[in-house]
């Protein structure tokens, strides 16, 4: 069959970065082409070129047999290309219907036909299997719901070529299933699909073929995804062997170090308590909205507490603001990188140093620039952060590399006692995940408490000593490493009556 989409020798250079270097491959109608590669390999850049957001510095882009030179996103849409971007692009104050139909709202006598718009969108949402009110504002929805709106927006364009850039990174189990069904249906309709993800299971389930990138270059295209062994994928991607990605080793555990007693908030239905030992890695699993982030934010002083107390080494921690928690040695790496994590226009070094610098001030007042630079460079090396230098604005980094910078911010804290990681590997490549798991192990081995919230079940199972499962704002159960399994965890996470079919 003829290629519906062809990249021919595409190159793209940013100051100090060769993001794409002569990339060529093609995809056919009715095919799902997976794109894999380390963070910063150039995957998103390629999609942005496909979507008309960037112009390539060299090479040809052929869509549907025609060479295309998109001047704007509008041109790409008109040519039948739809992109679901890695960074969600919605207008918070507009409704679901308006967001989905942005740029092509239906009109009647020159006026927007709100009713028709709502009906069209309602129909499409129902068709996909998402239950959302088309009249709701995006600002009132959860991130996962916003992501579903983005997906609906792309599907609504009725495009021939649809590209997904890490669509599942902010989706939970449920929405992920919906998405998978959708992708399969679009494939059966003969559309050409591109699918980027760092989750290999997903790629195996969905993709027919895959293309692997490293450092802006195409390494290889495998025409039949199912034939490629997992280890091969990983080594193509990261350029080395990664055997056991979780790399779990048991640790010496100390006495109880952190204790949360009866924490209450306006949103949680009941007070929550848990305790953990020094040296322990405690996983928190649950569906989106289960209350994991909410609980950790309470502990961290990020949201107002309505009761309860937190004990660290037996001493109460009165955290009325994150600054208090940090001073006590408790840090939290937030789940929403863009809104809660990065200082977009600040440099990589600044983003790393913002919190920990208070320890190394000259005369208690002045910054030690050399020391901060050193620290930034150390982490850039240690976490393999792909950036031309430490002074690069963080917003210019790839999504996964931004995540690593934020992680570095917390790992740089000297007086660390409790490390809370909320979805720490969201958008991170396999190689780097492996690095992060090693770091988690090391931090715990030094006697700290490490809490990891993750919606990726294999991940929490793989790295935790113990697992707490939450459901609807309650702790629904606890599993130790020996008894923890996917089925057991899902049974606790899903609402009563639902089966944990996977």
């Amino acid at each position, binding site marked *: 069959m003829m290629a519906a989409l062809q990249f021919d020798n595409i190159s793209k250079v940013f100051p100090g970065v060769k993001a794409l270097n002569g990339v060529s491959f093609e995809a056919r109608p009715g095919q799902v082409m997976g794109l894999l590669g380390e963070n910063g390999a150039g995957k998103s850049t390629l999609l942005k070129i496909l979507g008309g957001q960037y112009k390539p510095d060299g090479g040809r882009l052929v869509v549907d047999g025609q060479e295309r030179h998109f001047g704007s996103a*509008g041109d790409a849409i008109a040519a039948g290309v739809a992109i679901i971007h890695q960074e969600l692009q919605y207008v918070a104050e507009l409704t679901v219907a308006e*967001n989905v139909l*942005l*740029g092509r*709202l239906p009109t009647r006598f020159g006026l927007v036909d709100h009713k028709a718009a709502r009906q069209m969108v309602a129909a499409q949402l129902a068709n996909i299997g998402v239950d959302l009110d088309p009249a*709701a504002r995006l600002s009132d929805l959860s991130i996962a719901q916003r992501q579903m709106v983005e997906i609906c927006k792309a599907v609504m364009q009725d495009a021939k070529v649809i590209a997904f850039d890490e669509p599942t990174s902010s989706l939970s189990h449920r929405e992920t299933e919906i998405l998978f069904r959708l992708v399969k249906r679009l494939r059966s309709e003969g559309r050409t699909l591109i699918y980027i993800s760092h989750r290999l299971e997903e790629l195996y389930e969905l993709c027919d073929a895959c293309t692997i990138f490293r450092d802006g270059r195409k390494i290889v295209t495998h025409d039949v995804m199912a034939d490629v062994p997992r280890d091969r994928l990983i080594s193509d991607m990261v350029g080395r062997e990664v055997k056991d990605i979780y790399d779990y080793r048991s640790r010496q555990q100390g006495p109880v170090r952190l204790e949360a007693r009866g924490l209450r908030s306006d949103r949680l239905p009941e007070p929550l308590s848990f305790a953990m030992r020094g040296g322990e890695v405690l996983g928190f699993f649950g569906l989106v909205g289960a209350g994991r982030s909410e609980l950790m934010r309470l502990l961290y002083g990020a949201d107002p507490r309505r009761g309860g107390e937190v004990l660290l080494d037996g001493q109460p921690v009165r955290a009325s603001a994150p600054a208090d928690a940090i001073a006590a040695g408790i840090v939290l790496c937030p789940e929403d990188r863009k809104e809660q994590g990065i200082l977009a226009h600040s440099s990589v070094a600044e983003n790393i140093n913002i919190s920990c610098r208070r320890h190394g001030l000259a005369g208690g007042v002045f910054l030690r620039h050399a020391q901060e630079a050193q620290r930034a460079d150390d982490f850039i090396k240690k976490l393999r952060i792909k950036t031309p230098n430490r002074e690069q604005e963080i917003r210019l980094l790839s999504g996964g590399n931004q995540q690593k910078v934020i992680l570095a911010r917390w790992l740089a804290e000297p007086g660390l006692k409790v490390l809370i990681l909320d979805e720490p590997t969201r958008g991170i490549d396999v190689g780097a995940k492996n690095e992060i798991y090693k770091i988690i192990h090391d931090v715990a081995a030094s006697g700290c408490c490490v809490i990891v919230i993750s919606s990726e079940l294999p991940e929490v199972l793989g790295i935790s000593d113990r697992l707490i499962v939450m459901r609807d704002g309650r702790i629904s159960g606890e599993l130790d490493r020996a008894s923890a399994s996917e089925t057991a965890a899902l049974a606790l996470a899903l609402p009563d009556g639902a089966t944990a079919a996977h």
Partner: protein
Amino acid sequence: MNTTTSTTAASPSPAMTHTSRALLKEHSMTLGYLVLFVVLSFSVENFFSSANIVGLLLSVAQIGMVACTMMLCLASRDFDLSVGSTIAFAGVLGAMVLESTGSVPIAIGAGLLAGALIGAGNGVLIAYLRVNALIATLATMLMVRGLAFIASQGQAVGIADESFFAFGDTVVLGLPLPIWMTVVCFIIFGVLLNHTVFGRNTLAIGGNPEAARLAGVRVERLRVWIFLLQGVVAALAGLILSARITSGQPNAATGFELDVISACVLGGVSLAGGKARIFGVVIGVLIMGTVENVMNLLNVDAFYQYLVRGLILLAAVLLDQLKTRGERRS
């Protein structure tokens, strides 16, 4: 399949709840103003008389008009400081053209055209040349004011044509023409904001320019149009003003821009873009006018008027603030 239902499980009938809450939100402001109005009617002598109400409305007619387009401008995350100067320039130009041609339509046409050009100029500077909106419109504010002075040689340009005055004081159905024009502006721009692609895209580019661009909205072109409209409406206000004060004055409407922006912000328009309600703007404009009116009725000392105006501004936004908080809790 029950997997699909859980996403909105929290609210049983989301559509209903949402619209009714939204209505309440809009109405709470209006309600607040109505309460204030009733209280003033009973407590302040002469407040509730047709003469006074007409006077009050007339006093905010110009602000009201320009607030409509300023709302769009702020909603798209921009800023326009040049409206006061445009008012002055259009007034002066209109008066001069009237003097030399003797034709009211030509005078009005000239004024509006000048406004359109100024606005479009702002738009091009901001949208295409990417000059910061504050600086760009500050620059045009200065330049246009300079042009008004230069054109008129610093003197008010007298208007002798009685038929032009009609523009400012014809009474239709008990209300002078400028008030009707303002009402028409509110209706037009209300519809524009809420019921046209133009309005929705304006909110979109204010809320998330990148998202709008990726969805194929022609952001630059839209920006230019918004500023162009703003220029035309400011010019219209300037022409009406010159008709009312029977001369084109080069130093008219200084400081006007801050009044208009305040009225909008009071009315809930966000300076961060993406949020605008025409109803709110109406109320914002009315609050500004009512405070001024009542202070003069009560013979408040000029120096204390500063204090009172400041306090009222604060009170209004603090109340709004508390309301929004309460809402979030509930």
